[in-house]
């Protein structure tokens, strides 16, 4: 029943790619279009409206700055996790992947605090279109963070058994997860100035 699909581990010589690496790049291209569409919607709504609220009145810049640092750190640690596998150091992989997961959780907690503050002030998506866009963009981003967290947790826990049976394929999976995590990070780096600083 099991079928051998070529180029899951080794690269195809003429394309220089493994299947997973190509697929994750394609997926990210689609994600760029998704967030790109929402960013364009934001730009169009903001530039077309007669009255756009002062964004700074609604957002918590120090908290978001802290969150930015947390997320950038996690991007670094996930690279370290992948590099550890490349160097055959499984223990330090666990450490760095663990840190990445912790940072992701930390981001979510801080984000939860921020949302809590919004609701305390009765700021809801329906309040105005800035808050609407704020909740849509950050909400979708949170969904992506959660998705990444689930994958990273899997690769830290049960998924890591693959290291014993198919180390190259496992390294490929961690690489793909890392690419995705960088993308999630990158989206935040766009969101932060657009929603908090401008």
């Amino acid at each position: 029943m099991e079928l051998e699909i070529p180029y899951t581990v080794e690269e195809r010589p003429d394309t220089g790619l493994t299947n997973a690496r190509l697929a994750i790049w394609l997926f990210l291209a689609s994600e760029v279009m998704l967030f790109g569409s929402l960013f364009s919607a934001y730009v169009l709504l903001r530039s077309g409206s007669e009255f756009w609220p002062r964004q700074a009145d609604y957002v918590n810049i120090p908290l978001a700055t802290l969150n930015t640092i947390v997320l950038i750190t996690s991007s670094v640690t996930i690279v370290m996790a992948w590099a550890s596998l490349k160097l055959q150091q499984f223990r330090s992989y666990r450490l760095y992947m663990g840190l990445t997961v912790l940072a992701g959780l930390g981001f979510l907690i801080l984000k939860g605090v921020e949302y809590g503050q919004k609701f305390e002030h009765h700021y809801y998506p329906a309040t105005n279109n800035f808050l609407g866009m704020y909740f849509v963009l950050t909400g979708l981003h949170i969904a992506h963070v959660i998705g990444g967290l689930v994958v990273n947790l899997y690769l830290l826990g049960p998924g890591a058994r693959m290291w014993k049976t198919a180390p190259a394929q496992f390294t490929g999976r961690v690489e793909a997860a890392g690419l995705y995590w960088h993308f999630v990070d990158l989206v935040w780096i766009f969101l932060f100035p657009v929603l908090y600083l401008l």
Partner: protein
Amino acid sequence: MPTFFRRYIFSLDHKVIGVQYALTSLVFLLFGFTLMLLMRWQLAYPGQPLPFIGGLFGVANAPGGVMLPEFYNQLGAMHGTVMVFLGVVPLAVGGFGNYVMPLQIGASDMAFPKLNMASYWLYFLGGVTMLASFVLPGGAANSGWTAYPPLSYFATIGQTVWLGGMLFLILSSLLGSVNFITTIVQLRAPGLTWFRLPFFVWGQLVTAFLLLLAFPALQAAALLQAMDRIFGTSFFMPSGLVYGGKVVAGAGGGNPLLWQHLFWFLAHPEVYVLILPAMGIVVEIMTANTRKPIWGYRLMVGSAIFLGFMSFLVWAHHMFLTGMGTSISTFFQTTTMIISIPSVIILSALFLSLYGGSIRFNTPMLFALAFLPMFGIGGLTGLPLGLASSDIALHDTYYVIGHFHYVVAPGTIFALFAGVYYWYPKVTGRLMNETLGKIHFAGSFVFINGIFMPMFIQGLAGMNRRLYDGGAQYAHVKDVLHWNTFMSWSAWGLGLFQLFFIVNVFLSLRTGKPAGSNPWQATTLDWAATSSPPLAHGNFASAPVVHRGPYDYSVPGTREDFIPQHVEHADGEAR
């Protein structure tokens, strides 16, 4: 019975998934077609009770068998949605793409079999969601398949469910397109270089890119509309609306045109998603049945890629009447004319390919041949709609309906029929019945033109689309109103002739002529696999190696008039 489930329900094999897609989408095509048959009654005989079945729809939809506008608008919106998103695209891409593409590139399966299964089940879920919306209070979505706000904002709950269904379908197509591209790029057989790919594979590749990059715009739009409807945001809702005599609550400040931009950014590339796989099918069938290569293969590949790129730059030609200034309208008129060039090139190449051939008129070939003039009519009538000035007169008239139906119905759907007749022996090991097939073709060809040709006459006279009474109120279309009855009877005639197809599909399973592995004596790798290739045991007896281009038919100096792609060059064979 775990093996049964594993093999036929939750199969990972691309062939089973392809057949699942094909059967499901054929059912949806029939369902979407039936919705239209109901609408055509109301158009031909407005206000008269539906005969025989009128009582089935309940008081909310058709009291006394007379269809209400509420029901008519649901049928209209869902006809479009079902045909495009649940019928044609899943059949062309999910069905044919899944089954044929891996075979044609000599792969043992798709790159990600589990993703493949997930895309089918997400599609299934999306379809069920859409169907289920009919039984909601207020029924299914009723704001057109385009779902323009604010109308869709005020619509019944069916619209929210429609958005949910779209979300499943978009996820399904995202997974599918990633899988398709990866498979084509990575799993091509040794020797199968880019310019040795059958045109069908090129069509699927460009289509997958369009799905990958255009659908996210609709995903974003659907998300925003769902926010508007569920959480009361105002992304598409301007301030100061008065609806039903009451001032609309809400923050306001939104822009209804934002939806249209996002929607058409998807929906225009979607047109090429509908047409490129169809062209691929037509090329495969035409080369096999003219016994010669396609004319200008590289030119056609280039045109298909160019079409793909350009299709991202023409979306606003659907929006000329939304208050567009000179410069923007000039841009979109110009890009629209530019995109017509590769279409003209592809169509010309198909016509020219016939010259010098030795044409076999079997059923798949008849449908493929009919595609050429039908797509030609559909394409050419797009010109007056793509120019902003003439669009003023023709926008929202039946001319538009005629135009895109010629592209999609006697165009794409005919190509899909051709594909079913052509690859049926690959799937089942038996040929479909030729006599039934030819009756199906002849009846379909006559009646489908009977439906759509009069639409141009009505549209030019200024009859508008989406009218519950078929335009009976308006004096200026009095002289063309009588066509409504003609078109409706043509539609029912078309329905009747589809029975020949349905019977044929089932009958030939048992009584069809055994086909062998290559009944059409074709050259591409799909025909090198055994007929009805075994499930999940690889597609080929041994991994194929490709030695030549896709269409080596009638090569001088050889005994047979075709040389399959995996056959090595022989002495004395002209290169």
